[in-house]
């Protein structure tokens, strides 16, 4: 019962937050609503006994990603609204609604057969974080390391791209000059 109450509460809140993110004209509101939505989603993870994932969700999204976005927003001065009037809302909602409908139809219909076998079944008596750790560092060790390298690369590239020649505005020069600079 509690599970149901929690699910519906979180569902309502998440949908509401995401809707605000999508519909709001103010970028600040949108970002705040997104951060809130992320936290609510971690609620689902806890509900689903994926404690580790829930914690990672809060740390990565709300902690790191949102902070990055916040900095980005400051940089872009995106408090000023970007006009979004030239998109026909009808089409947008029609398309999204249709895909939602189809997805729901697919998910509600009993498409998943019973034959699915658990590859890495959860074991009783072991905590979630522990179980994830065991699988991650045994079966998924290589993807894990690759992901680590990818994050490192992303970090370095982010730093380089954002910081390169901060002192000059590329806007005021044409392509040739930029090329010249690059050659030097």
């Amino acid at each position, binding site marked *: 019962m509690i599970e149901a109450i929690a699910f519906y509460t979180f569902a309502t809140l998440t949908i509401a937050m995401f809707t605000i993110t999508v519909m709001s004209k103010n970028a600040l509101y949108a970002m705040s609503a997104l951060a809130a939505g992320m936290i609510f989603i971690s609620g689902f993870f806890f509900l689903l006994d994926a404690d580790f994932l829930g914690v990672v969700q809060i740390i990565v999204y709300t902690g790191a990603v949102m902070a990055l976005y916040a900095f980005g927003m400051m940089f872009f001065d995106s408090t000023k609204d970007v006009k979004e009037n030239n*998109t026909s809302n009808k*089409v*947008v909602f029609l*398309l*999204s609604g*249709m*895909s939602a409908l*189809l*997805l729901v*139809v*697919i998910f509600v*219909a*009993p*498409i998943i*057969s019973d034959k699915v076998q658990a590859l890495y079944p959860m074991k009783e008596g072991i905590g979630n974080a522990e179980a994830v750790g065991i699988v991650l560092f045994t079966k998924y060790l290589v993807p894990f390391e690759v992901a680590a390298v990818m994050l490192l690369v992303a970090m370095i590239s982010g730093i380089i791209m954002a910081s390169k020649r901060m002192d000059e505005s590329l806007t005021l020069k044409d392509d040739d000059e930029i090329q010249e600079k690059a050659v030097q």
Partner: protein
Amino acid sequence: MEKYLYLALFSPLVGSLFAAIFGAQPKKLITGIVASALLFVSLFSSLYLLGYVTSTGNSIHVKLFDWISVGGLNIPFGFVVDQVSVIMMVTVTTVSALVHVYSIGYMKYDEGFNRFFSYLSAFVFSMMILVMSDNFAGLFIGWEGVGLCSWLLVGFWYKKPDVTRDINPSISPSWAANEAFIMNRIADLGMLIGIFLIYWNTGSLQYNVVFKDVSALNIGLVSLIGIFLFIGAMGKSAQFPLHTWLADAMEGPTPVSALIHAATMVTAGVYLVIRANPIYSSIPDVGLLIATIGAFVAVFAASMALVNQDLKRIIAYSTLSQLGYMFVAAGLGAYWIALFHLMTHAFFKALLFLGAGNVMHAMDDELNIFKMGGLAKTMKWTAIMMIIASLALAGIYPFAGFFSKDKILEVAFDSEHYLLWFMLWLGAGMTAFYSFRLVMLVFFGEERYKKYGFHPHEAYWYMLLAMLPLAILAIISGFFEESFEHFVTMLLPEYHFHVHGITVVALIGITTLIALSGIGLAVYKYSRGGFSEKWKDTFVYKLLINQYYIPIIYEKFFSKPYAELSRIAWKELDLRVVDATVDFIANVIYKTGFKGRVVQSGNLSKMLKWMVIGLITLLVLAIVYSPVR
């Protein structure tokens, strides 16, 4: 032995390719010399093979490689040297080699010297393939190859402009070349159908297999095959009604006329009938048809030669007429006699043409024999050789034509086709007459050329030397009759004569008589200034000089309606239907592209929209094709 076979076959090709390297360059004597030398290599190889086949009686059969092997169809590139093909090889290479040497002199000042030798050697190569192939497909390849080379060589002086029929009956070299080529295509279609029928019913194209199986086939079917093959032979050998191209083909250089349009290529039709003798032996009715057409052409062509004023055309008509003789022999089952006449004819007709070439050279390419006369004084050797050739053609003892032509007349008489015999007999008289009319008008009598300002001279010594072997062969080749018969009847069926003794002697006597009287008439009349001008107004003369109006009839009833049909097909069908359809498709695609270009706006929002549409499509498909419902 295979070495010699390949040597005989491929040396002309090497010569052709060598000359072709210099094709676009100005004259290089070396091309002519190399091509001729290689032809002599081919000639000696052929002679060696002849010696081998004569001494052992074996035939050589080689398979170069598998050519076509598709499903049940298996055609190897195989060659056979047997009694028939070796005779053809020797004939072809002899004449070709001599004509090559002759051409070095004849084409001396022609800017297409190298090109000429390339074509000429290529022709010999094709002809060798034609006669040496051991199957119908290879024969057809050679058949088309000689047709192509003939087209190239007839149209050798393609730069000459078109003129009306009144000035030049063949209009222009390129016109004549096209006529020859197209006329042959019509006939080749018939031949192809014949070959298809053969393959269809026997499952093979190899001669030995086909000829073994042919006796088991339905007689109607064999007749059909025989007729279709003969249609092909009719085109190549210029038999009525596909004969007009041969006279027009005289637009080519004279060595070409000598080699291709007298000695070798035009006899390919006769060769085909001889080669396919097991087919024709089993269908005597078709044979009779062939003989009838042959006899008709023999007289028909000879009649046109009677009045013509063009040196080369007269000889061309005589070729036509002699081909008719060969077909009579082949049609009546006397294959070895047809082959014999083919060989002797090749020698003396080539000689005649080469002599004509000398005269043309002397007369600055003038062809009208009424503008010549008395040339024997300046061109003694040419005159002698032309007279030898004419005597051989007329069939006077002891020249070659006497033996072969008389035999044909005997066959016609012997097989009790007296009408055919009579026609051939008449033809023999005409042949004698027009040959000596030509000799008289060109070499004797009043020196009319002086009026037109010509300065005739004898040809180069090596040209005369090249003609000499032919002259000797024209005299002596008849005496090989016995051994020839013995040799080729190892492969070809023997012809058994029923009439003997006094009848044969009488026949020979009658034939010789009419030939001699033809010669006598010509000599008598033309030594006295010829026939009166009144003849020119008669209907018969007009009919003959206009070639029975056949070219004009062809033009009116075939060419013009066909051109009209083509125009309709072009203007109405092609432009309005085919082109319109194609244009429509192109327009639809073009416009779709033009309209669809907007999709590529470069705008990310729009692209995303399209992406979502794609997502929806995929979802729908996922539902429709979901494995579990």
